């Protein structure tokens, strides 16, 4: 998106938040906290998309990767009785799913969208088949308040009193931005996604770079899945990623394949959802619940249509690399 418009939009949002904070502090804080929690899996999933697409691989299978990891993470945590172990199992599962996409799209040079779709269908099938009722988590993850910072009005309770996943999501976005734009790894990754033949000439192993990046990105999808099952929902239900993996792709595009841009896009997305739910529960307007449910999906389409032509994907995305 055009940077100027992003600043104007951001300015309006900040002004709106301050006005509403002055009018009703508690409610504003709760809406913002809700929005941030809603944004966490979207931030993480968008990072998966960014790492993959910056390396030249479309990952339409984020949804399935998250679903499998949520499943493995939840049952891992329930069976081991340890939430951290569950999260690790989730991340591991995500990396296996990432490697699955890497084998399909890099090693076998399959059509990347079909490879991702297979991941989605396979994940739906496997998690539904092995789904079992009657398991509960051994507890809840504690929220960690950052000393001093948590006492800042508005920002403190919203930003600095969260679960570990929330901090991790923001940290990953920031680190990824640094890695992508300030390190050799980032330069190589971007070159592989923009012009693989040139990277190859300069001695970068294109398939290996793509393979490693897609696999590692799967780990982030695993973290997103673990967050959904272990922290956000505290349970696992069939198909409960509910299209977040696809929404994340739209957020990635909206954020112009930039980790920080995508993070703000995801928070904006969460904000609309938070405001809509609050309006609904306050019965300000009589909105049928179905319309609130469809809001994220409608917004995804609107955002995509709005930014189309203003941002461009990495040049080599979707093309298997063929050495001449």
């Amino acid at each position, binding site marked *: 998106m055009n940077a100027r418009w992003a600043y104007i939009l951001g300015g309006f949002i900040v002004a709106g938040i301050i006005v509403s904070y002055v009018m009703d502090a508690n409610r504003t804080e709760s809406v913002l906290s809700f929005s941030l929690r809603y944004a966490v899996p979207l931030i993480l999933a968008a990072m998966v998309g960014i790492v993959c697409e910056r390396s030249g691989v479309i990952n339409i299978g984020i949804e399935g990767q998250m679903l499998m990891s949520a499943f493995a993470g939840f049952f891992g945590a329930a069976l081991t009785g340890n939430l951290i172990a569950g999260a690790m199992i989730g991340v591991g599962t995500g990396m296996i799913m990432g490697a699955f996409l890497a084998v399909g799209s890099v090693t076998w040079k*399959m059509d990347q969208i079909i490879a991702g779709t*297979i991941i989605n269908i396979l994940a739906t*099938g496997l998690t539904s*088949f092995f789904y079992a009722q009657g398991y509960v988590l051994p507890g809840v993850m504690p929220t960690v308040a950052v000393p001093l910072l948590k006492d800042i009005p508005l920002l403190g309770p919203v930003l600095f009193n969260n679960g570990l996943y929330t901090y991790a999501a923001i940290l990953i976005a920031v680190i990824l931005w640094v890695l992508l734009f300030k390190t050799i790894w980032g330069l190589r990754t971007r070159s592989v996604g923009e012009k693989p033949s040139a990277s190859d000439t300069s001695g970068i192993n294109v398939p290996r770079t793509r393979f490693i990046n897609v696999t590692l990105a799967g780990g982030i999808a695993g973290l997103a899945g673990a967050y959904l099952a272990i922290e956000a929902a505290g349970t696992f239900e069939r198909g409960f990623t509910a299209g977040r993996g696809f929404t994340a792709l739209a957020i990635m595009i909206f954020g112009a394949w930039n980790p920080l841009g995508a993070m703000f896009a995801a928070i904006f997305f969460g904000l609309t959802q938070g405001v809509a739910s609050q309006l609904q529960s306050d019965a300000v307007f009589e909105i049928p619940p179905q319309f609130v449910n469809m809001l994220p999906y409608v917004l995804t389409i609107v955002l*995509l249509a709005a930014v189309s032509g203003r941002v461009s994907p990495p040049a080599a995305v979707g093309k298997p690399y063929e050495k001449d």
Partner: protein
Amino acid sequence: MSVTDPSKTDLGFSDPDPQRGGPLGRLPSIVLPIASVLIAFAVGGLLIWLQGVNPFYAYWVMFSTALGTPEGLLRVMEKSTPLILTGLAVTVGLRAGLFNIGAQGQLLAGAIGAAWAGYAFTMPLAFHIPFAMAFGMLCGAAWASIAGVLRAYRNVSEVITTIMLNSIAIALVDYLASRPLKEPDQPISRTPEIAETAALPNFGAIPTGFVLAILVALFFGWFLMRTTSGFRFNTVGLNSSAARYAGISVKRTIVLAMAVSGALAGLGGAIETLGVTGRFEPAFNAGLGFDGITIALLARANPIAAIPAAILVGTLRSGAAALQFETGIEPEVVDVILALTLLFVAAPIVGRFLFRKRNIKTTRVTSGWGS
């Protein structure tokens, strides 16, 4: 890539190079899907066995209930009908280079559209059925056209929009069936029953809708291979720049292909409403769209091959309920089998093993991404 004769269009997922022939000649295009299905069944059997049930018994239960009795056969035909049509919907999209993941939403649009046209109007039988069907197709086409127009004129990936439109459609039909189109004085959300004049009859033991679906599949086999419009679809799908140089309006072809695709899925929903359920209820029609993808890829985007592929999937879906009843195996085992089938058809694992060829071509079906 040059523009190929559409009659030779072969999406050929992991197919050995057809020009090279090889010991099996053109046979691989049939052998590969069959081998994939068999291997998927073997893996599914392993899962069933791990649950402590004899897989041969389980498969026997599935197929004998589905195919062994007249009622079972009727149900298989009823289940296969929307699957043939959603399979065709995905196929038509693939031919034009579009990956329509939204058959589910388009089918729902068609199903509720046909239900409304079926109960809200009074007209003679000769008009009512075609009218309700056409209206269902129109709803499906309109729903798909959102994605088609966005793809053609704003270059927004149809993969994301059709998935989003699925979720929107699910919420929207739920709203429609619970508010404006709800049957009055009923505790559950559903539309009133369609008029008798709109109900699709059975042709003896065969549902009319099934016959219709097969005719539509045959028509599209002819349409895609032998007509100018079909040629345009294929050309745009194979090489859109070549299509542009040849004077084909790529944008219009994309919108048209998406609308046709949506109309087919909508027809599937309409037939389901008019021939099987008799009304629209949000719980019906779940998951048919994703099976359409499996069917289209299993049939290698060949409209006629979509018929047996859909009947296979319909048989499995139909037998799954009996499987659960008899053995306690979750019916979702079918989802696993279908996903594995798709994997083996689309990934060059089985092909490589079967044909002992290292350098197998995997053809691309989708083009364009992002903005």
